[in-house]
């Protein structure tokens, strides 16, 4: 990863002059669906340890439906893509993760303005994270997806401030999310199903934090592929 990369050359297929196109968002959801399918068993196993063994199934169902929705009614703007994905998740997933991720993408979709610069995306992303925090009333350290999303958003904002290019910014963000997810392992859950386990929730990675890391990782993957 070089820090001197030209933003303009990043995400070439999707990003036009450092701008994230509708195609970029569609590709993002494509990749999330692919990764969720690949990691379905892992996410479900994480949920089996401290939850009810359905997180992988839930997200697989949800992002498959997102893919269908985006194919059936191709979005004409990034905002539309995000809104459509969010609505689909809310309508199709159920459970805790459905409304949380659904609201996140909907909040992003509402916040985003065209053309989507990296700074604009970072602000929208943060709006999504805030939506999760407000809906779930979880704070960092509660051992939820918030533990992956908040550091991701913070890292992305810093990258924007530092003028880092899209690809590298997303790579840093993905790493922050991944670290946030792993950092949930020693925590004792205070929100969601895992909180019922008390002490016994310690020592396991939170499934929602893991899926958040996956979703953010897809950002980086798609940006990299597009270059």
């Amino acid at each position, binding site marked *: 990863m070089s820090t001197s990369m030209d933003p303009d050359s990043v995400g070439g297929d999707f990003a036009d002059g450092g701008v994230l196109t509708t195609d970029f968002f569609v590709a993002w959801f494509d990749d999330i669906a692919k990764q969720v399918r690949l990691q379905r068993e892992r996410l479900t196993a994480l949920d089996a340890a401290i939850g009810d063994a359905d997180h992988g199934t839930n997200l697989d169902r949800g992002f498959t439906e997102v893919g269908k929705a985006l194919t059936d009614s191709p979005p004409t703007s990034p905002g539309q893509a995000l809104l459509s994905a969010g609505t689909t998740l809310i309508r199709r997933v159920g459970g805790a993760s459905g409304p949380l991720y659904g609201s996140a993408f909907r909040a992003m979709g509402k916040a985003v303005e065209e053309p989507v610069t990296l700074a604009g995306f970072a602000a929208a992303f943060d709006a999504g994270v805030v939506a999760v925090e407000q809906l779930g009333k979880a704070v960092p350290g509660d051992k939820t997806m918030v533990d992956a999303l908040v550091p991701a958003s913070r890292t992305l904002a810093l990258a924007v401030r530092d003028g880092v290019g899209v690809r590298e910014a997303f790579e840093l963000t993905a790493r922050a999310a991944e670290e946030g997810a792993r950092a949930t392992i020693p925590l004792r859950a205070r929100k969601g*199903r895992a*909180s019922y386990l008390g002490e016994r929730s310690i020592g396991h990675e939170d499934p929602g934090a893991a899926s958040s890391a996956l979703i953010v990782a897809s950002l980086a993957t798609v940006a990299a592929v597009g270059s």
Partner: protein
Amino acid sequence: MKKLINSAESMVDDALAGMAAAHPSLLVRDRVVYRASGPRAGKVGLVSGGGSGHEPLHAGFVGYGMLDAACPGEIFTSPVPDQIINATEAVDGGAGVLHIVKNYTGDVLNFEMAAELCDDVQVAGVLVNDDVAVQDSLYTAGRRGTGATLFVEKIAGALAEEGAPLREVAGMAAEVNERSRSFGIALTSCTTPAAGKPTFDLPDTQVELGIGIHGEPGRTRAPLASARELAEVAMDAIHGELPLEGDLLVMLNGMGGTPLIELYVAFAEVSAFIHGKGARVTRSLVGNYVTSLDMQGFSVTICRLDDTLTRLWDAPVETPGLRWGR
């Protein structure tokens, strides 16, 4: 995994098709189970729902004297707002609709989203949180909703059937919840069809104490013990939060894979425990009512009755899962 299913994906829809075929009194449409008779003008509508895998809860409690509609989600996954919105709008007889929601993050979020979007219906909600295995503190998502859900649905349902207004029905639902506490113990894990293997590994010599109804492991493990000792663990936990006195409604509930003969064995112990405290079992239910797929184990739910609650409990009910008086 050995299950009597066609596929993990189609399981919920297949079971709903079976319910529709078995019960002409029910109407199944778009993943909502309704009374076939439709809403009754002036009656408060009762809507509940939650993940599937807890049968007969909730769909088996749709009918006269209980629910007007149930929204079954995927296995152990709360329903989505669309289902709840459709159900709420369809059952409103002009007197408003009560949402009976078990306290799980997913259920709460999806019912909240739905309630917000039901612009044309007056909606009240009750959160069921009876499970004493979970401390209701800042450090948890709060007590879980388990067996008391059946009591709330039955008693609030009877009051709604009498024509009480939404405020009263919601108040009664909250009161039943407040007067009820539960504790569950698992002898085996359940196996969700999607995961295909047991959610947790439990040695042959151990049990999980303080389980929920989603195959979540309990608070602690303990050695396998006699029905008497296990019943005592459950009853001590309940008694600690809801002192056992007066007239009690007691449900000895199986988790789905425990046969009735064992539930009666456990009920004998629970009943003896209660009498030992000087309280009375004046109403009871023994059977598989609020289940966790094929899990073996049981839960006890106790509700402190008064004359009104007793009268409403005794009122006629006609659902696939609970029926008397008609």
